[in-house]
């Protein structure tokens, strides 16, 4: 029995429902805060102030958001093609290898604005190649992409340990990381943009790769909704049978979508390496690839939504660090719980409140819900 759903206006679908989900996630998180004996309202204030209160916090929030935009877009591109790329973490991590090699090779001879494009290509290529193997196995062999991309996360981790310890680390160093990049591979900061609004920033890693992230968000929108390739990807994503009928090659579309997804995941590595630490270190991705899944879900797989969700998660990261500092009872793990709740309500339970909102809208304005929206089981 299908329950007939009335149609919602777009703003309710894309803004109201995510906000309700978010609100509920915070309410439930508030109970957890009470459990550890802290005041949830004060915790919320600390969180938001930590993220947006001062220029410093804003810069950090946007720095984190940049990485999440890349990883969110990566998940979204694959998802539009019906593929769950859970390997953004590994694709981003392995891209660090490409970035490391490019930066070490060119940072002494080229200015940053020449090193950067080469590093972008290297990062995208490494990420794409790392996605290619699971994509090929899925397309040709039917090996499930979720399983293979998870496995490739582990393989990437091992490869990176070997590469950093064995080849990229300076000979005398004990730390498993490259030497610090010279100026030719350091991305300029964008902190001055925030300072234009009168805020003061001591030091924060907000840098030009954020602009690349926004450009990629726009390009992903163009790709998905304005190109033939995007049309084919969406067709396959919604119905592989319809794609077959329409003459779309399954193998080709899976491989292309996964490589684009992997390339975007790879670009996520630019921000923490060239933008912040100025080296490639062990575990530098630190879970951002997985956060991308939540960001993409929360952003409803739309670039605009992804940018907004990425900023939200950037806020959780930055505000959460402040929170852990201000309230010792709340550890970093609390933040992970809150993130988990957001994922739960925004992703898994996305439709929990939808029927109620729809009933509310239907009772408010009978005209706004189309008659033809209701196709119950035909008699």
């Amino acid at each position, binding site marked *: *029995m299908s*329950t*007939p*759903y*009335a*149609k919602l206006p777009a703003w309710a679908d894309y803004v109201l429902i995510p906000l309700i989900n978010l609100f509920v996630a915070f309410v439930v998180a508030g109970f957890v805060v009470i459990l550890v004996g802290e005041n949830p309202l004060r915790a919320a204030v600390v969180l938001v102030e930590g993220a947006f209160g001062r220029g410093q916090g804003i810069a950090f929030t946007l720095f984190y958001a940049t990485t999440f935009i890349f990883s969110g877009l990566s998940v979204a591109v694959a998802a539009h093609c019906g593929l769950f790329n859970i390997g953004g973490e590994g694709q981003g991590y392995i891209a660090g290898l490409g970035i490391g090699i490019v930066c070490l090779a060119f940072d002494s001879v080229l200015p940053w604005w020449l090193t950067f494009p080469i590093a972008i290509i290297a990062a995208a290529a490494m990420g794409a190649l790392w996605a290619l193997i699971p994509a090929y196995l899925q397309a040709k062999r039917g090996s499930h992409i979720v399983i293979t991309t998870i496995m490739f996360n582990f393989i990437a981790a091992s490869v990176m340990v070997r590469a950093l310890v064995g080849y990229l680390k300076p000979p005398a160093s004990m730390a498993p990381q490259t030497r610090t990049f010279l100026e030719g591979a350091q991305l300029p900061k964008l902190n001055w943009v925030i300072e234009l609004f009168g805020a003061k920033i001591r030091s924060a890693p907000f840098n030009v790769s954020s602009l690349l992230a926004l450009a990629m968000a726009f390009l992903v929108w*163009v790709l998905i909704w*304005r*190109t*033939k*390739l995007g*049309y*084919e990807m*969406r*067709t396959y994503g*919604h*119905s592989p*049978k*319809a794609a*077959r*009928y*329409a*003459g*779309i090659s399954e193998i080709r579309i899976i491989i292309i979508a996964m490589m684009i997804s992997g390339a975007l995941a790879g670009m996520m590595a630019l921000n923490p390496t060239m933008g912040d630490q100025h080296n490639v270190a062990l575990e530098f991705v630190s879970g951002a690839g997985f956060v991308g899944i939540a960001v993409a879900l929360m952003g409803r797989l739309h670039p605009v939504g992804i940018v907004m969700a990425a900023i939200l998660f950037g806020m959780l990261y930055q505000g959460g660090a402040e929170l852990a500092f201000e309230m010792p009872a709340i550890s970093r793990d609390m933040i992970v719980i809150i993130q988990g709740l957001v994922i739960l309500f925004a992703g898994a339970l996305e439709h929990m409140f939808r029927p109620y909102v*729809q*009933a509310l809208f*239907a009772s408010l304005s*009978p*005209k706004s*819900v*189309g*008659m*033809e*929206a*209701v*196709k*119950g*089981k*035909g*008699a």
Partner: protein
Amino acid sequence: MAQAAIELIGIDKSFGAVRANRDINLEIMRGTIHGIVGENGAGKSTLMSILYGFYQADSGEIRVGGQPASIKTPNDAIALGIGMVHQHFMLVDNFSVLENVILGAESDALLKKSIAKARSELERLEREYGLEVDPDAIIEELPVGLQQRVEILKALYRGAEILILDEPTGVLTPAEADHLFRILRQLKEQGKTIVLITHKLREIMAITDTVSVMRQGTMVATRETKKTTVEELAELMVGRRVLLRVEKGEAKAGGVKLAVKNLTVKDSRGVTMVDDVSFDVHAGEIVGIAGVAGNGQSELLEAISGIRHAVSGSVMLDGKPIDLTGAADPGELRERGLAHVPEDRHHVGLVLAFEENENSILGYQDDERYLKGPFLDIDAIRNDARDKIVKYDIRPADCRLKTANFSGGNQQKIVLAREMEQDPGVLIVGQPTRGVDVGAIEFIHKRLIAMRDQGKAVLVVSVELDEIRSLSDRILVMFAGRIVGERGPDATEGELGLLMAGVEHREAAE
């Protein structure tokens, strides 16, 4: 006799702003067969779902046997002696008949006792109503007609006095349907009350005592079957006069457009679905393939349209072969003038989540008219979609609306508009009017005949015998993967029915 088994008084049900049932009054007499007809979305299913406890009415009263009844769940309905046979069977495929019958009605914690008890009860029911089924047979090994009998037995086992059947003949051969009707008459003689939901007016005429017509959520009329006609019922259903049989002139058949030779197709398990099939389709004629669903028609269509791998044989389009290795590019076949309206428009012919205009280029996304380099030419696509909406009277006339929000008939028109407007030489159509309401059927049939009159070769596969007879210039009957006979358009239903059941075929083999 003249006592009401069920009375519905002022039933109202809304989903959001949509009133699926409005002020329905209905009285069903005990010991009769009562038909309910109406187009898709007229509210028949909603009404029966209320009666069976899937939905609650917003207002109104249900009386069963004269007593006001509160039916909140299907269990309440069963307790009141109401049983339902669903259009899609609710059976566990790898369970035996007996296990399915007792499922959810086990009388003991240990299965053994319940089974022994059920076995004797089942045997009594089978004897009493002529519903012979081997209690130990596994469901998936039974033909559809017998599976349906198990559904009926399930309801009777639970003590049903009132039996609701939802589109019971959709999957049956004419012979199986006749058998079902004999069973229903027998049940009626034993005093059971039967409610038959269908859109096949001929069945209503053949078996019911009274018939009620629903349209747009209201009960527009109740008639004694003897005193009404198919034409009157059709008019009541649609709200205007409809042509039940399209008029068409003589076919002027030209040269061979599509030649199928010794085509054999196996499914993924290696079972032969199409067995050495050969036929031609000429320009300017409609060839209809009749047959009960599942006799290889789907596989035949898929093989011809290049989607499915064929084991052997050949298909020639305009004298040139089609790649049958399964690696054929459907896009290339489209360029060669082969258009295909697939049977399953929900998963194959359309992407329901797409906007209407996006679906209007599905399969033609490589066409330069819709592209600017690698980019979609959105304006061209939408203008093209708007033209088709006007030409094919697709409603609502909004090319930005999600395809899932169109009715079945309009969805089919979207597919037909797309495929016909490409001006193909050969048009293959699977189930042209499945789930399509009466008004749209007439439109679609006229379009198909117009294609024929323009000199196109049209191949139609349908499980609706009426449709095949009304459209086709030649009728091929498929049974168990083989073409078992060819007839002219004037073949009688009985004759085709026998072929569809494989009777003549079996005799010939012996």
